[in-house]
C-alpha cells in the first residue's frame, strides 16, 4: 500500500500543525503557501508578543515551521491552487507557482487551512482610519510594537496617551459583521500591557462594551493588565474621532458609568479590527465547491460534532478558515484535520484494493 498523498493549503499555525502530523504518520504531504515564507498571518503582519504568556511570535511559530521543514513535507512557497477537481480516483489539483508554471498533482484528501484577514477599518469612516495618521489598526500597531518603534505617525513623537477601541468590524450590524472576533479584547489588552511594560510613562485606555477574555486569559491578561500595569478601562463605544486643536485625536464617547459624554484627547488610537475570512479562504472554497456559512467562513459539516469536516467528502478544514480562533486552537484543529484526512485516504485505499481483487 503506497503512502496516501495529502494536500494542505495554507502555511499558518493550522496548516503547519496538520502538515507535520501527516508527515509524522507517513503520508506524502504537499503544503501550498501563497507567501514566500511559512508562519501565516502572524508572521506576515509582524505580530509582536503573543498572549497570554507574552512570548515573541517567533518563539511560538518557529518551532512549528522547523518541524515541518525537517519532516519531509514538500513545501511549495509563492504558490497557489489554480484549479481543483474531485473525481473517483482523487482530487486533481493544479498548483501555480508565482511566475506562471503549473504543476499537476493528484491527492487522496485535502486540508484547507486558508486562514483569515483583518477587517479593513476604512469602512468605519467615523474613526478616521486613513484620514488621521495617528489612528492605527491591529496590524499597524503590532508591527510598530514588534519593531520597537512606538511613535506617532503624524509627528514622530512618543505618545503620552493611547486608546484602544474594541469591536471594530465585529459585533456591528452596520458593517454586516454580527459575530465576535474573539481576539480583539485579548490582543488590545496585551498591546496595552506591552506598551506599559516598555514605556510605563504612557497612559493607556481601553474602550469596551464587554471584555471577553475567556478562560485563562481572564487572569493572565485582563486582570494582570489592571493590577500590574494599571491599564484603564472605559465602558462605552467611541462614536467618532475628531482632530483636536493641538493635532491630537479627540475620542467622542459616552462614559456609561459616569453617564456623561466625554471628549478625551489621545495621541494615538488603535482600532481592534476583527477577523473575516481571507481572500484565500473564499477563493479556495469556490474552487473546491465548499459551502460557506452565514458569516462568510467555510461551513463545517456539523459545527458541533464534525468541526473539521467540510460539506465536500475528503476535504477537511482547520484554523481560522471556519471562524475566529486563537493560535493554540488552530494548532489543535490542524492535528484534528490531519487525523481525519489520513483516515479518509486510508479508507479509500482499502476500498480500492478490495475492488481490484
Amino acid at each position, binding site marked *: 500500500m503506497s503512502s496516501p498523498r495529502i494536500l494542505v493549503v495554507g502555511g499558518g499555525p493550522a496548516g503547519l500543525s496538520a502538515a507535520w502530523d501527516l508527515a509524522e504518520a507517513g503520508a506524502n504531504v504537499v503544503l501550498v503557501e501563497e507567501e514566500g515564507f511559512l508562519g501565516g498571518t502572524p508572521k506576515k503582519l509582524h505580530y509582536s508578543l503573543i498572549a497570554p504568556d507574552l512570548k515573541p511570535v517567533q518563539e511560538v511559530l518557529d518551532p512549528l515551521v522547523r518541524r515541518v521543514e525537517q519532516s519531509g513535507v514538500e513545501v511549495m512557497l509563492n504558490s497557489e491552487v489554480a484549479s481543483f477537481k474531485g473525481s473517483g480516483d482523487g482530487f486533481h489539483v493544479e498548483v501555480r507557482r508565482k511566475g506562471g508554471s503549473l504543476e499537476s498533482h493528484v491527492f487522496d484528501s485535502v486540508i484547507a487551512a486558508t486562514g483569515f484577514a483583518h477587517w479593513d477599518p476604512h469602512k468605519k469612516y467615523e474613526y478616521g482610519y486613513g484620514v488621521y495618521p495617528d489612528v492605527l489598526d491591529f496590524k499597524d500597531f503590532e508591527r510598530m510594537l514588534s519593531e520597537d518603534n512606538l511613535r506617532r505617525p503624524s509627528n514622530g513623537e512618543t505618545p503620552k496617551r493611547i486608546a484602544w477601541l474594541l469591536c471594530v468590524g465585529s459585533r456591528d450590524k452596520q458593517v454586516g459583521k454580527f459575530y465576535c472576533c474573539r481576539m480583539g479584547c485579548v490582543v488590545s489588552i496585551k498591546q496595552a500591557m506591552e506598551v506599559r511594560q516598555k514605556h510605563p510613562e504612557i*497612559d493607556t485606555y481601553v474602550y469596551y462594551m464587554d471584555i471577553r477574555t475567556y478562560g485563562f486569559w481572564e487572569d493572565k491578561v485582563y*486582570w494582570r493588565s*489592571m493590577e500590574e500595569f*494599571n491599564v*484603564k478601562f472605559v465602558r462605552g463605544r467611541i462614536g467618532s474621532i475628531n482632530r483636536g486643536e493641538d493635532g491630537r485625536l479627540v475620542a467622542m464617547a459616552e462614559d456609561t458609568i459616569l453617564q456623561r459624554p466625554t471628549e478625551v*484627547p489621545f495621541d494615538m488610537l488603535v482600532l481592534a479590527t476583527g477577523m473575516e475570512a481571507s481572500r484565500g479562504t473564499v477563493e479556495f472554497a469556490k474552487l473546491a465547491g465548499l459551502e460557506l456559512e452565514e458569516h462568510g467562513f467555510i461551513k463545517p459539516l456539523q459545527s458541533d460534532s464534525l468541526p473539521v469536516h467540510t460539506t465536500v467528502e475528503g476535504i477537511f478544514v482547520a484554523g481560522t478558515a471556519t471562524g475566529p480562533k486563537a493560535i493554540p486552537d488552530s494548532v489543535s484543529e490542524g492535528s484534528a484535520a490531519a487525523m481525519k484526512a489520513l483516515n479518509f485516504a486510508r479508507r479509500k485505499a482499502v476500498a480500492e484494493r478490495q475492488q481490484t481483487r
Partner: protein
Amino acid sequence: MPIHEKNLVDKDRLLVKEEAKLDGLDVSGQWSTFIEQRILGDYSTDVLDAVASTPAGKTIVNCWQCGTCTAGCCMHTDFGLREFNPRYFIYLAQKGAEDELKKYAPVIWRCVTCNKCVERCPKGVRVEEVVHSIEGYMRSKGWMGDTPASRWDEAFVKNTLQTGVLDELALTRSYVSREKLAEFNNRFMLRMALKLVRTGRIRTGPLRHRVKGWEKVRDVAKEILEGGGEG
C-alpha cells in the same frame, strides 16, 4: 432662547447671572440663565496615582466596577443613603473626575467599616480602605474638613495608644462630650456602662487589661502612623 423646563436640568449645572451683558447690551432677565456643559473634557490620573500610592489605597487598580461592594453596603442599602456608593467613588477616582467626586464630600465619610465589601469583592479590592484613602485625598485637597468619623478615629487611636487596650468607656465619654451628642446624656451613659460592666463586655478602671511591654509596641505603632501607615 430662554431656558424652559429647568427642572429637567441638573441643578448644579444651572448658572444664573445677576446681570447679563452682550456687547454692552443688557440682556438680563430670562437671558441670564445658562447651562454648564456636561461633557467631560479629559481623564486624569491624579487621583488614582495619589490613592494608589497610599498603603490603604493600592488595590484601587483592581476594581472592575461590578458593584458587589455597593450591593452589600449597609450605608447604601439598609440606611438608604443612595449617595454613598463605594463602587462609584472608586470609578470617579480612577478616572480623575474631580468635579464629580467633590460633590460627595458630605457623604463619603459615612462608612461604618462593616467590611462586607472587603469580604465580598471578587477582585480583592480592599474597598473600605480604598474609600478611606479617597476620603483622605479629598481632605488633602481641602474639599472637606474633619468629620465626626475622622474625629472618632483620632480619639480611638489616641485612646488605644495609651495602654494597648481600648478603654471603651473613656473613649465614649470623651467623644460624646466633644461632639455634644444630646442623646448620650449622663443617665443613658451610666445605665449603658453598668450594663456593659455587669455583662463583662468591657473592663474599665482598675479592671482594665494592659499589654505587657506596650511602650515598645507603641513606639513602633507611632512611627508607622506618622509615616502615613506604611508598615
